[in-house]
């Protein structure tokens, strides 16, 4: 259904269907990245569920023969206030990610968190990983066994009874009985994972590794059938060679165990000892469990008895279902909800918004993540719209951002997912990067319910249309269905998570978020419309879920991006921040915080008789930016905007007085104190989470 990324983009080296998407970034280097979910295990056992989610995504990247260099984790929970269960999930999911990521030495450079009660029992833990390596290394290690006669080696941890049926558990709705499924959650071992990373990369360097596959969902069954099935070969596997953690495991248990920290290697016969020597150096467990052949049949032996005899492709090719889809009947009424007139002042609205769980600082989370290990993190957590890493030895930088607005998608999944693409591309563009490729993780309810399937179907349509039109290759995806509480009959809000990876050439082209100098112009790029459906303003101030959500005009978005890159070429953008939850004033406040600056705003130029002040200020219309430029450049900027037909407005100047003064609205002049906003912004999560 998606465009063939490998065929249509010359820099895409691996697209959907591989363990990770891979792109060529020049200078002989490639990037591999992928995102997937670990929702169900984390909802039952947050610490190990989240930790093994990290473990799994690291293995997927490692399979491409490259070093994992960054993690990003978008999360969803029920609201924290007065909700001990959500706090428990949140606390231990973050701890699980931190303990695992920190120990393996892979920095967690980004992520996002949204709190909404549809995620109360079904929290979402999506995990993304980026890997960096040479194109040479990547070519050495396809996740296929193409050659008959190669050895199949299992390396890493031992095989135990944990995680049997982990995948089938993850593909059911959660019920009151799900607590009993706790043994289906695997236990992570980040130390062994770290050793697997080093041993695998060193083994790949020998040049004798011809295929690599991690053991994730489905364990040995999936790994062996995918290696041989996708490689169009066959193989014989001897089960009793597998080193087990406990005696008496039967062949079924060995084949289906999802014990963590295991990798399968396909190795050239002449290189067997060289590869095993690497494993010996790192004191890793290993066993040569079989050989490939050209039979196109996968045979598994338990001692002398043949326990599996199946065409290799039979398991690697998936069945297709025809699902019914239906637009939920409640949507029309929700979308037609009008924005009530606020009963409190606009200043009070902003203070409440900045203190909302979904807008406030997530420092409580990222302080627990080692986001600097690897000495690559140039724009660090909390400092920009995306995480920026340098590629040592080149003048290139990568920017990565992940997220989606679940509330927008709940009201309109097609426009919502497009909005997410605009937002995530906007985040990397705000830091100066050109969006290179997208991966996604689709989190939805039970696909057997037509309304739930409709959300999935529309989201996929939205991704597909946007990415084709704006020429962004989709290089990977993952689907998590059945995020539905069977007892309470609550499905999660549709969450088609989007990750964008972008590229920056030259350190001087990195743009950061904070305002730099008093006296500079503040410009608003893009139109603002009365799009408050699913906004934080509706939710925090009016306790409303409905309203008209933002929609996307692809041509206008494209023009704004082109406009920004024209300005970047001239080096005239001093700060850039994409407008997101909470609207314009929240965005400007965030830009003031770092250097304790203020802003004198005059919105006269934005006057629109059809827009109320609250609609204008708190709209979440997508694809808008606030930029800082020197006033001397305004003429040039205006000229470029006119040529590219982009709506820009000068809305004020930066001031050294830490206060935002607002005039030019229909209502009277008001002002906001930066120190009060900063105090609220910084304290919310820790106040909720610390005793």
């Amino acid at each position, binding site marked *: 259904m998606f465009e063939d990324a490998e065929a249509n983009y010359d820099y895409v080296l691996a697209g959907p269907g591989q363990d990770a998407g891979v792109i060529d970034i020049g200078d002989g280097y490639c990037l591999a990245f992928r995102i997937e979910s670990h929702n169900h295990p984390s909802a039952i056992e947050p610490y190990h569920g989240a930790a093994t989610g990290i473990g799994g995504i690291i293995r997927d990247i490692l399979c491409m023969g490259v070093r994992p260099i960054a993690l990003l984790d978008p999360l969803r929970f029920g609201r924290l206030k007065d909700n001990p269960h959500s706090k428990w999930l949140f606390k231990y999911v973050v701890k699980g990610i931190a303990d695992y990521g920190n120990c393996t030495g892979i920095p967690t450079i980004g992520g996002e968190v949204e709190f909404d009660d549809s995620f109360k029992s079904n929290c979402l833990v999506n995990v993304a990983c980026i890997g960096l390596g040479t194109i040479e290394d990547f070519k050495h290690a396809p996740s296929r066994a193409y050659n008959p006669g190669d050895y199949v080696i299992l390396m890493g941890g031992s095989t135990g009874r944990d995680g049997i049926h982990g995948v089938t558990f993850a593909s059911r709705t959660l019920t009151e009985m799900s607590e009993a499924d706790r043994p289906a959650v695997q236990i992570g071992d980040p*130390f*062994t994972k770290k*050793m697997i990373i080093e041993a695998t990369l060193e083994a790949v360097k020998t040049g004798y590794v011809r295929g690599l596959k991690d053991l994730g969902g489905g364990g040995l069954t999936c790994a062996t059938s995918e290696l041989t099935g996708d490689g169009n070969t066959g193989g014989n596997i001897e089960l009793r060679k597998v080193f087990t953690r406990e005696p008496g495991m039967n062949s079924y248990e060995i084949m289906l165990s999802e014990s963590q920290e295991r990798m399968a290697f396909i190795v050239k016969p002449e290189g067997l000892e060289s590869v095993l020597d690497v494993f010996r150096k790192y004191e890793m467990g290993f066993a040569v469990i079989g050989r490939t052949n050209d039979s196109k049949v996968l045979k598994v032996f338990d001692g002398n008895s043949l326990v599996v005899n199946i065409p290799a492709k039979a398991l690697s090719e998936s069945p297709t279902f025809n699902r019914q889809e239906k637009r939920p009947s409640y949507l029309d009424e929700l979308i037609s909800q009008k924005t009530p007139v606020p009963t409190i002042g606009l200043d009070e609205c902003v203070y409440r918004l900045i203190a909302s769980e979904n807008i406030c600082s997530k420092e409580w989370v990222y302080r627990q993540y080692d986001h600097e290990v690897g000495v690559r993190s140039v724009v*660090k957590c909390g400092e920009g719209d995306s995480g920026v890493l340098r590629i040592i030895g080149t003048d290139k930088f990568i920017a990565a951002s992940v997220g989606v607005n679940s509330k927008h998608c709940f009201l309109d999944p097609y426009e919502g997912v497009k909005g997410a693409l605009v937002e995530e591309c906007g985040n990397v563009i705000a830091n100066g990067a050109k969006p290179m490729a997208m991966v996604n993780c689709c989190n939805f309810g039970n696909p057997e319910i037509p309304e739930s399937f409709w959300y999935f179907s529309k989201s996929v349509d939205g991704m597909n249309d946007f990415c084709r039109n704006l020429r962004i290759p989709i290089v990977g995806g993952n689907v998590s269905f059945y995020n539905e509480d069977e007892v309470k009959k609550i499905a999660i809000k549709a969450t088609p998570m989007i990750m964008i990876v972008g590229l920056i050439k030259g350190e001087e082209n990195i743009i950061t978020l904070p305002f730099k100098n008093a006296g500079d112009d503040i410009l608003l790029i893009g139109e603002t419309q009365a799009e408050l459906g699913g906004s934080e303003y509706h939710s925090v101030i009016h306790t409303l879920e409905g309203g008209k959500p933002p929609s996307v005009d692809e041509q206008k978005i494209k023009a704004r991006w082109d406009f920004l890159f024209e300005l970047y070429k001239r080096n005239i953008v001093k700060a850039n921040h994409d407008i997101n939850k909470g609207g314009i004033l929240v965005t400007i406040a965030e830009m003031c915080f770092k250097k304790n600056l203020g802003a004198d705003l005059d919105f006269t130029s934005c006057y629109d008789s059809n827009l109320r002040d609250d609609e204008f200020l708190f709209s979440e219309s997508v694809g808008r930016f606030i930029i800082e430029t020197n006033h001397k450049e305004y003429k040039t900027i205006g000229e470029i905007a006119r040529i590219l037909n982009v709506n820009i407005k000068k809305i004020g100047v930066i001031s050294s007085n830490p206060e935002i003064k607002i005039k030019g609205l229909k209502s009277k002049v008001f002002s906001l104190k930066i120190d009060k906003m900063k105090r609220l912004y910084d304290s919310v999560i820790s106040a909720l989470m610390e005793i």
Partner: protein
Amino acid sequence: MKRLNMSIRIAVIMFPGANCDLDTIHVLNNVMNIQTDLVWHNYFKESEYDGVILPGGFAFGDYLRAGIIAAHSPALDQARMMLKDNKPVIGICNGFQVLTEANLLPGALLQNNSLKFICKWVNLRVENNKTACTNMMKRGEVIDIPIAHGEGRYFADNLKELEENNQIVFKYSTENGELTENANPNGSLENIAGVCNLEQNCIGLMPHPERASEAILSPKGTIHGQLFFKSIIEFIKRRLS
């Protein structure tokens, strides 16, 4: 590239689970231009090197107690021999934990008082500028440097002795060098961030100088971490001359 310090050779030990080893190698080789080898802990021979750095990370996973298993690696026997020759032995973060567990440095590193891992930039005040890694700094100088640890709360039951012997090398401080409670990120005794042995050739510290040696990585554009590595070179040069 011109190698300024051709004759000097330093080892960075790769314990299983170390994860700042490559970062430290990068800074020494590419930024400081010092010939540095990554050496697997079982293979390390002290006679081949002028100094050794035990890098940050989670040696052997730190499952039992941070640094305790690595403290029994043969690499530590080699390190003891180096110290007898007055060659510098430096532990950064996990390396500091290893050195205290191996009894090469006094005290212990306990879990942070917040019970959480903390990754952030802090300020250090230089308390002793006579050691193998501070001789290029001024006493009382404040440096910018990041921490990233879960078990960094320094404790020692012989504080008075440490003070008398000048064994306290770094303390967490404010930007202006004040030793306040707020400037202490983890609850360390007397804000202590780094200590040395009596001979001042073995030093351990929790913060990461290798992350503070390039302007592009530093929030304020400072490169104070370089002073740390320059001091090590200076110490080795003085020893050799």
